[in-house]
């Protein structure tokens, strides 16, 4: 089971999420000018990366918000979580930062550090939502 750090809710089980495929597939500027082959490539052709892959996820059982994630398709190592609409982070964050450092647009509330110690330290953590860490 993957533990995925939702930018809003903190660390949750993979079963609470749904996968949204490759991130950063831009809608064509002038769809009318595409020929059938180009249109089919936009609709159906996706990278099949072995290694670090940028992909979209939605926290469907939780806050129902979308976010982007950099994940290694070989090791399943989640390297970054970042808001929709922002460019792919240049370099992978070191593995120590298991959690996302992203905040979603405007009102995003938490950065969701996933360290269980943060929640157990007694003081109410400002980053991890109550009950959201494990």
């Amino acid at each position, binding site marked *: 089971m993957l533990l995925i750090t939702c930018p*809003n*809710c*903190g660390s*949750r*089980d993979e*079963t*609470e999420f749904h996968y949204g495929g490759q991130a950063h597939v831009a809608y064509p500027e002038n769809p009318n000018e595409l020929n059938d082959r180009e249109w089919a490539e936009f609709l159906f052709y996706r990278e099949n990366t072995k290694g670090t892959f940028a992909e979209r996820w939605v926290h469907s*059982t*939780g*806050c*129902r*918000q979308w976010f982007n994630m950099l994940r290694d398709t070989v090791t399943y190592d989640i390297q970054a979580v970042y808001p929709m609409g922002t460019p792919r982070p240049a370099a992978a964050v070191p593995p120590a930062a298991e959690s996302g450092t992203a905040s*979603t647009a*405007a*009102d*995003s*509330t*938490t950065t969701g550090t996933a360290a*269980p110690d943060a*929640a*157990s330290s*007694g003081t109410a953590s400002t980053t991890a*939502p*109550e*009950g*959201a*860490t*494990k």
Partner: protein
Amino acid sequence: MANTAALEGINGLRDIRRSPASHLAGALEAGSVEGTVVLKEGPFQTMAGVRVDPRSEAGSRIASVVGGLPARCGEVAGTERVSVLWLGPSEFLMVAPEEAHDSLGGDLIGSLVAALGDAPGQVVDLSANRTTFELAGPRARAVLEKGCALDLHPRSFTPGTAVNTEVGNIPVILLKPGEESYRIFPRASFADFLGRWLLDAMREFASPEVP
């Protein structure tokens, strides 16, 4: 059924309304272990789903109707009359007792609709969407932990918080009103399954503990 009392409240519809887990009432009572873990259905709460940008003017109008909007995951705002649960950055669930419903003399839905006005957003009457299981007792947490991956320890899941999560693989909203009590909001169609799942998870606590 010529019952004059039945004419009160939605022209008598109130009396024939059945809650999603009403058929389990006997089983819930039989499966409860007084002083250890007790399960019952708390049906027919008034619920309103609200989507509004909390920083907008309409957001503050809505906040003033219900006594504030929660700012982040887990937070519960509101008053004694109505609880406001955080579902997303711009999505909230208002939960109030049955009498708060406009059809029974209350004004919750109507006042929210009025507060939103023409602003972008929505107020939807969701009173029939979910039912409520009330699980309480010293072993209530042990029952939930059989099917919920969140850290339910009180140091992490404190009274007065609520989260959207899964219990027994069912998507629910889990509210913790007190130290040893939980309110579980499954959608109506999951009430039968989740009720039976909870009863099964409670069963071991009816027997003496095996050392």
